[in-house]
């Protein structure tokens, strides 16, 4: 796609985001009912859960990119892999901040070493380590291959986070959409927040990806100019 087409898509996404975020704030704070026992505290749920799902989505995208890079050796996949992890780590950081904020009043502690919390923390550490691998391998092609291999190994933890509240007993709330524990009046709010987070993810991913592609192009031009001298 050319520059103009790209900008137009980004502009549409941005407009969608701004209206979506206002709507999401309205849904989360005003439209949805007050929770019976937790009160307004429960409203953090509309940010915590969508951020978590979006973070995991980003790591799935990264896994696909890593596998594709190993097979195809095309830098396009590597750029997308890097972008998805950076955005994913950001969403996971949101999860790790909103979780303890909710836990302190609800459980009376900031943190508990239960399977769900521990595996989420490990997940966050793994993808920070992935970014470290990228920082410390100087050669671009090596960097792409090394981080792709590490990304594939790191992904082993993602299903564990997803299944942790389904396999083990945990004080972390169980998946309420599946068990039907979530009141129907709260569902539209959750779905809208989830959709807005997905749009935000796609928007950030695109911007980061184009930035990385441009950087790669500049690098290539500089190298060509140097050899021409």
């Amino acid at each position, binding site marked *: 796609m050319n520059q103009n087409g790209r900008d137009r898509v980004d502009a549409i996404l941005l407009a969608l985001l701004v209206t979506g975020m206002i709507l999401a704030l309205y849904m989360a704070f005003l439209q949805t009912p007050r929770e019976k026992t937790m009160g307004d505290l429960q409203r953090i749920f509309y940010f915590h859960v969508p951020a978590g799902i979006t973070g995991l989505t980003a790591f799935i995208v990264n896994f696909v990119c890593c596998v594709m890079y190993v097979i195809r050796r095309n830098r396009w996949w590597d750029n997308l892999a890097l972008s998805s992890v950076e955005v994913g780590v950001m969403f996971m950081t949101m999860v790790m901040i909103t979780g303890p904020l909710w836990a302190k009043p609800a459980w009376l502690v900031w943190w508990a070493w239960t399977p769900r919390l521990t595996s989420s923390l490990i997940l966050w*550490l793994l993808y920070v380590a992935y970014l470290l691998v990228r920082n410390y391998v100087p050669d671009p092609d090596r960097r792409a291959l090394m981080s792709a*291999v590490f990304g594939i190994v790191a992904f082993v933890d993602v299903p564990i986070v997803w299944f942790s509240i389904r396999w083990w007993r945990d004080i972390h709330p169980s998946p309420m959409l599946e068990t039907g524990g979530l009141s129907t009046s709260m569902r539209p709010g959750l779905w809208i927040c989830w959709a807005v987070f997905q749009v935000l993810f796609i928007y950030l991913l695109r911007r980061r990806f184009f930035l990385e592609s441009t950087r790669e192009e500049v690098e290539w031009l500089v190298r060509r100019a140097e050899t021409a001298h």
Partner: protein
Amino acid sequence: MLAKILTVFRKDLLIELRTKDSLNMMLFFGIVVLVIFNFALEPIRDSIRSAVPGVLWVAFVFSGTLGLNRMFAAEKENSCLQGLLMVPVDRGIIYLGKMLAATVFMLIAEFVIFVFSLIFFNLSVWAEVPYMILVSLIGTLGFTAVGVLLSAISINTRMREVFLPLILFPVVLPIIINAVEATSVILNTVDYRLLNMPLTIMSVFTIVFTVLAYLLFDYVLED
């Protein structure tokens, strides 16, 4: 295939027996870690047995990381790695041979560290030893399965040896957590059925990591 794996293993073993580079380092470091923990745990001297599983695995993992670091760093000297890559076998074979060597070195180090911990912490454990062997065997296999792969990645980085623990520890954390849990069941409870869960998780991780690393090892050693 087994003969080829054993050839790579024998090569590493022979180098180790002649230089005694890694093993000396691993043993010394493991014992130093135990001494430090001995002072750190002074306030809970009366119930020290409950803290031993964690202490043991920290010592195992720290000394094991030192050993893994040498695995490929030593090959880089005098371009031994080029020689190894020219051997006409599948790269996966080299991986399995290296993994076997790393596991054997670690198990030797673990045995010595364990004996020292019995003296330092005044433990009596005769009945528990067979279970301890089982847990350390699975835990060590899981650790080296992914450790050898990441060790090969870390020699590609600017930081070389310093880098390995940074990327290795987050990946092996699930194995370490369950190994500590299993050791704790062995040393501090009577109901050994509680071993099923941690041992299953450790085994699954070990198998998944071994298969992944076997398939991916080809790429990290490419020139």
